[in-house]
Structures are given as C-alpha cells and as structure tokens.
C-alpha cells in the first residue's frame, strides 16, 4: 500500500463519515473502513489500484449524502447484496419498484 496516499484517503473517509453520518452510523462506518484498510495493508501491489478506486467512489458517495441516508450505506449495501439469495433479490427488486411507483 502506497503509505501516505492511502493514509490520506483513509483520513478523508473518516472525515466524511464524521460530517455526513449520524453518530451510530459513523461508528459502524468507521469500523467497516478500518477493517477493510487493515486487511489490505499487506495486499499485493496489483490489488491496490482497484481497492483505492472503490474507496474513492465510496468517498464520493458519502460526501454527496446527507444524514447517512441511502447513498451513505452504499458500501455496506453492496456487501449485503452479495449475500442475498435470488429469491431475496427478486423481493428487493419488487419492493424497489413499488417504492418508485408511490
């Protein structure tokens, strides 16, 4: 991990959490990003660009959100999404369509 560049990104993300997330969510978000960055500390160099890119996208998302509403949960949501069954995804899809139609 290119230290100072990644540390600056890490700091920016923690700052964005502080500014854009409610305290409970901030704590959760901080733990999540800390865990991810720690896991990638010893990652092979070829994995770093994709990792960095994903977190830069996440940072943008957080910065555009307010009060930790939907967009802020993006990183977590995609993780949850990976664990859903096809049936659960279909239900979620229906729910989403229903909400949009209201």
């Amino acid at each position, binding site marked *: 991990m290119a230290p100072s560049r990644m*540390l600056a990104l*890490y*700091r920016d993300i*923690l*700052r964005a959490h*502080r500014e854009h997330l409610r305290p409970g969510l901030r704590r959760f978000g*901080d733990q999540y990003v800390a865990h991810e960055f*720690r896991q990638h500390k010893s990652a092979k160099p070829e994995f770093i660009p994709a990792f960095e890119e994903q977190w830069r996208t996440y940072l943008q998302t957080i910065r555009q959100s307010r009060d930790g509403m939907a967009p802020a949960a993006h990183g977590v949501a995609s993780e949850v999404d990976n664990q859903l069954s096809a049936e659960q995804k279909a239900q979620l899809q229906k729910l989403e369509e229903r909400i949009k139609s209201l």
Partner: protein
Amino acid sequence: MGARSFATFLDRADVTDRVLGVVKSFEKVDPAKVTAKSHFVSDLGLDSLDTVEVVMAFEDEFTLEIEDKEAEKIQTCEDAINFICAHPHAK
C-alpha cells in the same frame, strides 16, 4: 461570535491531560504505557492506520480540523500537545 470571538490558547497542563486521556482510551493502547513522550508506533505499538484514528480523535476532543500535512507530523503525544497548544481555535 463575530466581535466577541478572539484567539484563545488552552492551558498546556490541561491539553496534556486531555491528549493523554484520548490516547489511553484508544482500544489498542495499554494505558499504563502512555506518557507525554510516547511515540504512537514505537512505544505504543500502533500502526499507521491507528495513528490516523488517534489524530482524528484529537480533532473530535478539541473541536478542530488538522490539515493532512500537519496530521502526518503528529507521531507522539508531545507532537499533539505542541500542535494543540499553538492552535488558537482548539476548545
């Protein structure tokens, strides 16, 4: 605010107590090892990511924002104490 707001500097002993308090309450730190001279990495066993978190905790404690260039230089409790004592807006 406005006309009533002016630069005030905090008392060094008070800053020292609060800085050490923040570091001692950091999960991965053994509170018994913390002194004003402690280096976060070599004395307290923290890594570079932890150090970012500790500096963020100082920002929260003293209601200030430390620029990246300054934040990178804070590697010991004493560095933090010096920075905060010299910062007119620390609360």
